[in-house]
């Protein structure tokens, strides 16, 4: 029974929500291959901490469901037919490649393509020889809208939006040289992809263990990082560790009370601190900070030349500058240290590596990948999503809200839902200083707004909303479920409404890329232009819950 249940849950694929061509999107940060650091799909995301400038909607299958090949004779099998040589340069067949030679800036070899404006296309090509290749995806057969400049031999890909129904792939060079091109391909990547062209406004890819973050320290395997204060001491990497690796460090006192430590504010309650340690040289006093301000506990009586994981008697946080670290009181003494951990509670738990606040991992525990929106200027946007054929919408999101201090826009269809017919928004919290979330629905003829209170940050939830723009009142228009169960909420604005949703951009993380920044994490976001039967909705909620670290 349990196995079947688990199999059923893991087998659910949110793509099935879109199998009848329902309009919408599914953003899944746990699929690394769907994200890029820039908005043109040049640099893939490869690690936690990377900015996300483009995340591909998976509701239509993304890169795995590319459209038909648009380029004619991109492989130059026997000639360069299908390509037009523009200008005074030359474009000739050369042993299975297209050899372009430039004599002036405007020379190029190009091909027109039938595209859909606003759709995204995967453009890939090889440079077989030459070092100054220049490729453009332009609305005319000229060298504009360059997507690759001065590139040499290699394979390249870009994901670029068409801005017209006729686009041109333009092969050229950055200098008056010869370039051999091959395997030119352009195929649509279906979906409503979310992107951010502004560098400073890109959310950050992050992961935490599904057990949640417990280790309150940062840079736990980089004692040389500025996050650690070193006083009268040196730290040396590359020391053999208890696992047979070389990730431990040596702390050497270069004066009296040589120390390495971190100071953390804002903590409360009992704190457990632990660290693997062994004595390397000397016999002097070794102290651990207990986590309560700068109080310490002598540990030299239990430290030996063998590795041990030791903890102090738990300290009680003062909330201001509570310390964690190790002190060697005698100059010249040295200890090896490894895997420090400071956590709330009185018991040391399994170690969590904190490479950065955006990269926390625990051995044997699955990662929960998400996008961090900084509550300042981070946001994503899609091109217009055409929901005009429906008056129904399902929104399912795995969200962690970090603060209730300021109203936060998780997602909003259109620039401002309250003033654009056929749109909605999802706020968390709804208002400054309010422990709430809310949905606003603008059916065109009237507005409905419901608020759900008693939801104090920080908290992580799976939130789903069924929205209907043709409804008698707000209760009929907006039905919200919190972690798999219905919740009624409070009516803020209510009216009978009619009309369909519209074709609007979807803003994620800020209103209209400008205001009401969301301070929190998005683990999953599914928006479907149709209501979803309860059984199917629960399946989807459980899928999102598993990706979000929520149980119900």
């Amino acid at each position, binding site marked *: 029974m349990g196995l079947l249940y688990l199999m059923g849950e893991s087998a659910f694929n949110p793509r099935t929500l879109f199998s009848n061509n329902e309009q919408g999107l599914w953003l899944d940060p746990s699929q690394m291959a769907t994200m890029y650091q820039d908005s043109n799909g040049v640099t893939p995301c490869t690690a936690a901490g990377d900015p996300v400038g483009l995340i591909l909607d998976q509701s239509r299958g993304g890169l795995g469901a590319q459209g038909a090949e648009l380029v004619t004779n991109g492989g130059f099998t026997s000639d360069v037919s299908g390509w037009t040589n523009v200008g005074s340069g030359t474009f000739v067949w050369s042993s299975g490649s297209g050899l372009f030679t430039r004599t002036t800036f405007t020379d190029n070899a190009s091909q027109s393509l039938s595209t859909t404006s606003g759709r995204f296309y995967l453009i890939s090509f090889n440079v077989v020889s030459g070092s100054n290749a220049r490729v453009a995806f332009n609305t005319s057969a000229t060298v504009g809208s360059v997507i690759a400049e001065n590139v040499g031999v290699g394979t390249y890909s870009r994901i670029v939006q068409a801005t017209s129904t006729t686009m041109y792939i333009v092969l050229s060079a950055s200098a008056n040289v010869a370039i051999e091109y091959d395997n030119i391909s352009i195929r649509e990547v279906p979906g409503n992809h979310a992107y951010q062209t502004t560098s*400073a406004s890109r959310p950050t890819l992050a992961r935490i263990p599904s057990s949640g973050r417990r280790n309150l320290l940062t840079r736990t395997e980089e004692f040389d990082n500025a996050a650690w204060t070193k006083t009268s001491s040196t730290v040396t990497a590359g020391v053999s560790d208890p696992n047979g690796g070389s990730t431990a460090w040596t702390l050497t006192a270069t004066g009296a009370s040589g120390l390495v430590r971190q100071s953390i504010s804002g903590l409360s309650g009992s704190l457990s601190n632990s660290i693997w340690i062994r004595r390397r040289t000397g016999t002097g006093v070794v102290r651990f900070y207990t986590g309560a301000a700068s109080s310490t506990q002598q540990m030299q009586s239990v430290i030996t030349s063998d590795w041990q994981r030791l903890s102090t008697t738990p300290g009680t946080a003062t909330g201001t500058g509570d310390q964690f670290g190790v002190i060697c009181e005698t100059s010249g003494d040295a200890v090896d240290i490894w895997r420090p951990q400071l956590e709330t509670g009185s018991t040391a738990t399994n170690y969590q590596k904190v490479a950065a606040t955006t990269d926390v991992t625990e051995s044997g525990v699955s990662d929960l990948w998400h996008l961090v929106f900084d509550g300042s200027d981070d946001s994503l946007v899609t091109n217009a999503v055409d929901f005009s054929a429906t008056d129904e919408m399902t929104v399912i999101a795995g969200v962690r809200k970090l603060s209730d201090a300021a109203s936060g826009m998780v997602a909003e269809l259109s620039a401002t839902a309250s003033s654009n017919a056929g749109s909605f928004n999802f706020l968390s919290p*709804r208002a400054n200083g309010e422990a709430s979330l809310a949905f606003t629905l603008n059916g065109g003829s009237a507005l409905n707004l419901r608020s759900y209170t008693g939801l104090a940050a920080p908290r992580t939830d799976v939130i789903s909303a069924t929205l209907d723009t043709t409804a008698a009142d707000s209760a009929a228009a907006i039905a919200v479920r919190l972690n798999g169960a219905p919740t009624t909420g409070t009516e803020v604005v209510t009216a009978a409404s009619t009309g369909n949703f519209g074709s609007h951009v979807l803003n994620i993380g800020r209103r209209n890329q400008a205001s*009401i920044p969301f301070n929190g994490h998005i683990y999953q976001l599914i928006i479907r232009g149709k209501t979803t039967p309860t059984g199917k909705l629960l399946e989807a909620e459980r899928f999102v819950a598993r990706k979000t670290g929520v149980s119900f």
Partner: protein
Amino acid sequence: MNDWPYSVVLLIPAASQAAGNQIAAGIGHGPFNFSVALSENGSEPATWYGCRSQAQQSFIDLLTAVGEGQLPSIEGMNPREIGAALMQLQADVAIEDGYTHFERVIAERGLMRVEPEQETE
């Protein structure tokens, strides 16, 4: 090792917002980077604009070079215009949570966000 370890907050006076955005775009960071409206009491009009981002070491090096008077070359702007805008730029680099960092930096300068009315309609 995280390739984007630094949190950077940049602030520029409202009068230099357009120039700041032009410079940011000119060095490949896209449009409208200075997008967070700020003022002393949170009311219109904005007197400063800000942005926050994770950054690589190369961007910190660029900020350092600017601080030492090495100006980037920006198409459509002369060195005088670039210098005038960058002289107004205030930068803060930290290894800190992004939200906390931005809020701390604007508070230290006596600034608040200019935000629209709450969603109560």
